[in-house]
């Protein structure tokens, strides 16, 4: 049975891809993912903002209280090989590349145009097979228009594409006024793939402490409905590859995503919940389904239920529940 697929210019042995998550912080996990049959690994994200904050934090702690009291003019030894830039991340790419054969896709979250392009170049130099831009941005400035927000996304993409030669994927949220237009803009700007969709960190409130608390919920299968819809809609309208992410937990979930047209399906919550070996279960389910439904290759089912290829294309467009009425025409 041929599970291979293409994504970002590479042929992957399987459409199952590990999405950016803490799992990839350990090289041993990356190896385990490969052993479990993963097709590619997206590394955890390098955050420009975090690098900046860490530099400020380090500067603060190594400066705080110094040169103030005669007996203690400093509180820490000078450490020369302190890695405050992206060095550890870049080393991680190199180490990952050295231990596995599957493609390693780096993930980057920048906070300035210079940051996006500089780090993208360094990531390319470190040997990443491709780069996923994790544009993770909540616009809170009320004076900023939707068009400006959109332009900013495109600007980042263009800048990075202009800076590196490796394929560039864009991981996005669905929160645009017209996502299909947005996708088209990205397509025209040269995106090699769109990764649909980013799950936003959703803070909760602790009622005992009256504090906003970080609370990252693992996804459920139901979360895949939104990306599934958009992949179906976009499949035959843009050149870029499409990666499905959010809510993919079972082989059935994978099948659905492939049917609507995903090049790859990305796994995160399910692996965090069930462990890395769950990749095998999903693959087994996928194979079983394909066997039962007489598919020999993933490529056969990919996109076979895109919007254009469904009996009722409007079903992907309905916004509210309403009885699906057959269209009668005289």
């Amino acid at each position, binding site marked *: 049975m041929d599970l291979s697929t293409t994504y970002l210019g590479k042929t992957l042995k399987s459409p199952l891809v590990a999405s950016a998550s803490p799992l990839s912080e350990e090289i041993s996990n990356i190896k385990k993912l490969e052993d479990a049959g993963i097709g590619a690994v997206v590394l955890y994200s390098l955050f420009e903002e975090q*690098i*900046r904050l*860490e*530099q*400020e*934090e*380090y*500067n*603060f*702690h*190594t*400066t*705080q*209280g*110094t*040169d*103030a*009291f*005669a*007996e*203690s*003019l*400093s*509180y*820490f*030894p*000078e*450490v*020369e*090989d*302190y*890695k*405050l*830039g992206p060095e*550890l991340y870049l080393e991680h790419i190199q180490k990952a590349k050295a231990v596995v054969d599957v493609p390693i896709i780096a993930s980057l979250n920048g906070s300035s145009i210079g940051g996006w392009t500089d780090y993208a170049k360094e990531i390319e130099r470190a040997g990443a097979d491709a780069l996923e831009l994790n544009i993770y941005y909540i616009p809170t400035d009320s004076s900023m228009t939707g068009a400006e927000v959109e332009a900013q996304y495109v600007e980042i993409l263009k800048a990075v594409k202009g800076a590196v030669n490796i394929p560039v994927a864009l991981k996005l949220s669905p929160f645009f006024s017209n996502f299909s237009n947005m996708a088209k803009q990205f397509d025209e700007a040269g995106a090699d793939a769109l990764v649909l969709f980013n799950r936003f960190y959703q803070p909760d409130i602790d009622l005992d402490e*009256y504090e906003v608390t970080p609370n990252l919920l693992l996804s459920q299968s139901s979360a895949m409905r939104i990306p599934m819809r958009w992949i179906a809609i976009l499949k035959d309208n843009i050149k870029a590859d499409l990666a499905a992410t959010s809510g993919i937990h079972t082989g059935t979930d994978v099948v659905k995503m492939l049917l609507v047209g995903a090049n790859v399906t990305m796994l995160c919550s399910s692996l965090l919940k069930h462990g890395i070996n769950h990749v095998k279960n999903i693959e087994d389910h996928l194979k079983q389904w394909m066997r039962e439904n007489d598919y020999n290759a993933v490529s056969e089912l990919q996109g076979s239920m895109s919007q254009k290829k469904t009996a009722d294309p409007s079903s992907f467009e309905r916004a509210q529940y309403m009885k699906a009425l057959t269209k009668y025409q005289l």
Partner: protein
Amino acid sequence: MKGKKYLTIDGNEAAAYTAYRVNEVCAIYPITPSSNMGEWADEWSAKGIKNIWGNVPVIAEMQSEGGAAGAVHGSLQAGALTTTFTASQGLLLKIPNMFKIAGELTSTVFNISARTLATHALSIFGDHSDVMAARTTGFAMLASASVQEVMDFGLIAQASTLESRIPFLHFFDGFRTSHEVAKIEVVEDDVMRAMVTDDLVKAHRRRALSPDRPVIRGTAQNPDVFFQNRETMNHFYARCPDIVQKNMDKFAELTGRQYRLYEYYGAEDAEKVIIIMASAAQTVKETVDYLNANGEKTGVIMVRLYRPFALKAFMEAIPATVKSICVLDRTKEPGANGEPMYLDVVNAINEGLDSGYGTLAEKPQIVGGRYGLSSKEFTPAMVKAVLENSGKNARNHFVVGINDDVNHLSLDFDPEFSIESDKVVRAMFYGLGSDGTVGANKNSIKIIGENTDNYAQGYFVYDSKKSGSITTSHLRFGPDPIESPYLITKANLVACHQAVFLESTDMLKNLDKGGTFLVNTPYGRDEIWNKLPREVQSQLIEKEAKLYIIDAQDVAEKSGMGRRINTVMQVCFFAISGVLPRDKAIEAIKDSIVKTYGRKGEVIVQMNLKAVDNTLENLYEVEIPAKVDSDTSLKAPVPAGSPDFVEKVLGEIIAGRGDDLPVSAFPVDGTFPIGTAKYEKRNIALTIPTWDPDTCTQCGKCAMVCPHATIRIKAYDPALLKDAPSTFKSVDVRNKEYRAEGLKYTIQVAAEDCTGCGVCVEVCPAKQKTDKSKKALVMEPQLPLRNEEIKNWDFFLSIPEMDRNKIPLNSIRTQQLQEPLFEFSGACSGCGETPYIKMMTQLFGDRMLIANATGCSSIYGGNLPTTPYATNKDGRGPAWSNSLFEDNAEFGLGYRLAIDKQTENAKQLVKELASKIGDPLAEQLLNADQSDEAGIFEQRERIETLKAKLNEIDSPEAKRLLEAADYLAKKSVWIVGGDGWAYDIGYGGLDHVLASGKNVNVLVMDTEVYSNTGGQTSKATPIGAVAKFSASGKPIKKKDLGMIAMAYESVYVAVVAFGSKDEQTLKAFLEAEAFDGPSIIIAYSHCIAHGIDMSNPLKNQKAAVDSGQWILYRYNPDKILQGENPLTLDSRPRKMKVGEYMEMENRFKMLMKSKPALAKQYIDQAQLDAEMRFKHFQYLAAREGEKIEE
């Protein structure tokens, strides 16, 4: 740069530079001011920097200097080239080994930054009392006078010790030389190899102990042979000076720098000569030049080799024409006929003339004097006075540099006398410890040293506070090597880096005529003049000064630098001083920023570069009006009406005029009044907490965590409010019992004493109903609130303290109503130790004696000018003393022995006098239950009754009992210190005291490093933490002191963390005090050395406990007798991983960022250790108690 290699470094680095390169093993231990030498060696070793033989020296931190000396001795005996670094008390601890090392003719060099020995007081500063105490050990003693000499003499000493077999003590002045930054010529490795030859090293190794050619050393000998054996080594000492001179000559051939054992400098026909050692010799040299140029005939003999004292060479150094000699000693030997070097010289000249050495025609007049104790300034003016002290009326055994109005031994000198050269640019900078002034100045020196042919010198003066401290930087630049080891008094430029200094510090007294005054101020060109006090205005006019201003704070903030104005002020300095052309200076500063901050990341580099660019356009010159017209004057250092001693002595010290105080101002035995910190209104907080009574739950936590006791709580009779200031806040008390009495409740801040740390806000659990971003305490700017809060604070103090018997101690809520008897210390803002001390004084302060180990707590607890320990309205309070670092447990036990003995005497007398004082009273006095406040209160009342009766009895016994009666009331002994003391240097004594069974309480404030000396590793340091001496992370887990103490089964043990469970902390203190035997409380103390946010440190304490890294428990042996399990585990199973806790602190994060794989290994190990420890404690705490059969 003249083809030579230069470095701009301080004396400690220069010493370490040479020692590291010519040794293989360094055994070290931190002590000011020598710690940095060991730190440098450790850092270089961690980086793999090699010695001249291509291997990386091994650095071993020991548990004490005594341990370091033992390790050095052993390492030498086993054949390695071995060194150590120390000072002061540390050197004293090495003396026993030094006798052995010298007695065995073993080659080594000890590098000493000479520091004052503690006598009537401790002093971290420099003099020769330590090295003079070691002069009988048999070590050769070589003195360096400058940073250059430190680097050079380290090598000459190494070559000489290997050749002569006499061990060397190479010393230089603590702080003055150890911390002076200077541009010096580097001794290259080739020179070192030429001096320390392989055959010398081979000979050293051949003498080592080895089972391949076994010998025995360190035998015991008897009267028949010891004496003869001791005399065998004389010829080694006789040869030693020639070897040193030979090596000095060889060094001169290699480097061009010629030194002599006794180096004469001055007029060939000098009549007056000073003999002196170390840095002050340079001052004399400079002054002699000046005086001779003005027709005097003076000179100086700089003593390099003090031991062995080379009689002939010394005599040959003295010009034939000399008529009077003055020997200056930087030490005091009470009771001697003179100080050590003076006596040496008297003897040398007598013996030398008898032997016909030298060219002296006749015996000159010889006088001796003391100077410079504890880094007291020694200036050209003093040198002049000393040289003038000759002839018929010459005073012998004088002192110079102070006003001795008691013994009348001091020489007068003209403080205005100055010999500063016009070729030297002199600048002084007044900064705050936290604003980066010193760092910027060190940087400027490097820029000038490295970018020009100019020589540079920097010396930095710090005050005695750990928070809000003022720093003064003294910088000189000039075309010739700078040999002026004294502070600047005629500056071309004075810079005031904080506008607040203008209110109270007379900075312009040191400005030379025509000089420049640079002020960082928020006021503009048109406003500034009116904001200057009269004293400042008048001096600017009189001195025809130039005035420049900049709003550095604004520039820094706009550049993203926050409160760090260092780069901004540095640019101003270069722009104004003209030391470098402006463009070149800016370029050099920018290069330096890239170099200095590069390792901290691009973001930091960019913000500094931005600050440079933003500075010049905000720097303005202000025209100085012709008339003084200010309404304000410099503020008095202490409030009007302060006690006489506070005003006349402490106030002068606060004002920076301590040098002018005469001998008569001081107590003879180091005894000072307590409770004086309250007079030093420092006003260092930018923001202070304000209280919202409606939101407040009256939990008391804010007062509990306040490190400086500046948040206080009172519950009181509402009638008192009738005189309250209008902004004084109060609310109905919530406590049921007090509510029934109708009491009011107030939380008040001491606005002028608060440091603005914000920990009270962090701990406050109550958030305002309509705005959850605000709590019952909100930080607000201090300045607009200051005046009204001063009134409120004064009113608050006038409200009587609540009757202690009415304060339940079973919860923080009520316990915090107790009056703290420890307030406004100089501890760091947000300190994690002081809340424990404060609670201890609240609970037991009126009956406690404190033995305080040297360290942070002895510095903020007992460093002049003022003292934070205070008294209550009855005049009772903690009696406090510091003996040493290493002996604190024993010192405290001594208190207990003395108190118990005197109590026993008093009880015996009560028994003897029972019939006269009345049997019932005697009975009650002897059998009083003093286990709680009420019991102690009643006993004190009985003692007063007793005293009244005794006054009417005329017998010797009654008089004796009258003296001893107070010992019938309970006295509580507390032994207090940090982990460096308890885990390392004082552990042997602590262990013995815990085993003694005596009723003493030990409080270990565990910061997990030597905090006071700058964060060196102790055995309390946890695995994976980066600390000094553990630059690659501590590889071994923390010692479990609590478990060791529990092993005795007779010691009360508690491990606490107030930021996690304050109620458990309170219980522990009460139980420790109640336990009639030794108790130890090990208290988690967050610290600036952890690399945490000191305004928000309690979350770290919580995380330490929640992760299981720090386990809370109490072990009470009394429970064993009650048939219960003595161990109560107060920690719950972990809520987070140890790694998550570690991620919160820079000390661990540093390793994660530098050596991630190693860090992970340590984190995993820490997790495993934490889990195993917790299971072990769970197991121990779950055991059922056993009924002990009577």
